[in-house]
């Protein structure tokens, strides 16, 4: 029993190091008190209670859950990207890309923590981080699936010499998304939690709607003739929604930040718009790329894609008469992905930020600041030092 007590005491000391300073003293107190508890099962029970206390106070269960989920997602993505048909030049870039992304996503929280602190309190920040990471892994998963088949013989529809460059660019974009998401949801972020929540939720909803109305969405599932005008109208509606969403999010975030100083309030509009654009782009990219990845296996989708993707990507200029369902699907799909969705991932957040900023300025100018409750909201910018004016000698 004494060795078991020693093990339990050691278990109590380990997670105590993860506790903040104001909580570590309580773990030390409980451990010190164990000497007064009668030896045997009473002392063992006392120490077990201490281990439970430190695990709960250090939020170890949540940290372990996140770590395991990350490891599982990284392993699953790597397993998917690892294999491929012989002679496929995309295999090595895919493998390197997945490993590099896993390392970046694992290391970025540490770097952001030093600059902006840990994750902000509350469920919204954790939900945005978890959902964002899941979307990034999902995008890598479906993209590697598309690239692997597109490059492999007998398709060979894409230029393999650009695989490394495209992979590097994609990796940079993913790292930028992850860094931005972590910075905006950090404790010392200048974006209010409500700003991030409003922007992200709006963007995710618009992303789903844009995908549904877009060329690879629900219309793809219908066979038979579709009037071109109806499809054009649906896409136009999607574009309007995509443009209006960051404006609406910027207005809402600025109004909600009514207690902050004027310039600070307008900034919330820009940040809400940035979140809207980024979330929408990520959702559209994941869903559309996943659809492209399924194209070779569905003749109905291929037939539809042959007509409509070629119709909406005239700049690609690669729509040719059907040479074979698989080849055609990947000619259109891979080109649309390479030319379209990476551009969307780059441009959408910037456009969202711009529209959100305009909305924020408009809303800011139309309402006076409200009194700010103590301790609420993001940290305010420091006031400029006062300059003293010396009177000239008489």
């Amino acid at each position: 029993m004494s060795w078991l007590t020693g093990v339990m005491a050691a278990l109590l000391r380990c997670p105590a190091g993860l506790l903040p300073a104001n909580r570590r003293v309580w773990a030390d107190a409980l451990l010190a008190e164990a000497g007064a508890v009668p030896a045997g099962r009473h002392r063992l029970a006392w120490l077990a209670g201490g281990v439970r206390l430190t695990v709960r106070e250090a939020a170890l269960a949540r940290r372990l859950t996140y770590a395991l989920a990350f490891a599982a997602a990284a392993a699953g993505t790597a397993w998917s990207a690892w294999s491929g048909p012989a002679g496929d030049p995309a295999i090595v870039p895919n493998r390197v890309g997945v490993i590099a992304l896993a390392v970046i996503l694992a290391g970025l929280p540490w770097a952001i923590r030093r600059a902006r602190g840990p994750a902000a309190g509350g469920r919204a920040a954790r939900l945005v981080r978890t959902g964002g990471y899941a979307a990034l892994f999902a995008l890598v998963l479906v993209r590697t699936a598309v690239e692997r088949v597109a490059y492999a013989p007998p398709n060979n529809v894409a230029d393999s010499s650009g695989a490394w460059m495209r992979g590097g660019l994609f990796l940079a974009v993913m790292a930028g998304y992850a860094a931005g998401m972590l910075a905006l949801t950090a404790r010392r972020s200048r974006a209010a939690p409500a700003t991030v929540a409003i922007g992200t939720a709006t963007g995710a909803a618009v992303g789903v709607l844009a995908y549904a109305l877009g060329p690879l969405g629900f219309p793809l599932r219908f066979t038979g003739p579709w009037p071109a005008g109806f499809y054009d109208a649906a896409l136009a509606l999607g574009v309007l929604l995509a443009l209006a969403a960051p404006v609406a999010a910027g207005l809402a975030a600025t109004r909600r930040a009514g207690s902050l100083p004027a310039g600070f309030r307008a900034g919330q509009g820009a940040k809400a718009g940035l979140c809207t654009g980024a979330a929408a782009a990520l959702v559209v990219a994941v869903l559309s790329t996943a659809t492209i990845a399924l194209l070779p296996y569905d003749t109905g989708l291929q037939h539809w894609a042959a007509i409509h993707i070629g119709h909406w990507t005239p700049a690609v200029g690669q729509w040719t008469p059907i040479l074979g369902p698989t080849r055609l699907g990947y000619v259109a799909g891979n080109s649309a992905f390479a030319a379209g969705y990476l551009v969307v991932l780059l441009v959408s957040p910037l456009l969202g930020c711009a529209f959100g900023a305009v909305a924020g300025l408009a809303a800011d100018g139309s309402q006076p600041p409200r009194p700010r409750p103590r301790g609420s909201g993001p940290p305010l910018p420091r006031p400029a030092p006062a300059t003293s004016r010396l009177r000239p000698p008489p």
Partner: protein
Amino acid sequence: MAYRSGFSAQTLAVLADLCGTPSRWRHGYGIARDTGLKSGTLYPILIRLADRGLVEARWEDEQPAGRPQRHLYRLTPHGLAAAAAALAQAPSTDGTPASDRVQGRRRVAAG
């Protein structure tokens, strides 16, 4: 079960025990023995009470030989008033006040 005072039954038991000797510093194991609470239940209660300023804590002044210094607890003046108010509002299921239930446990432990 939460009483109208906002404190759980276990928290009220801790408050009642500390109220019994409000000026004396108490050890954690002594409180646990009197209230019948396990360490995993008692210390979160003490943490929350300390965070709210109802309980103050300190280490023993002297460094005893052969064992580490122990942590001591007692109610603050604000904590004493809050505890008295909470205990006055909180009857037990058998009608016994919480402080009397603590005294009963002490008699059982001594016996």
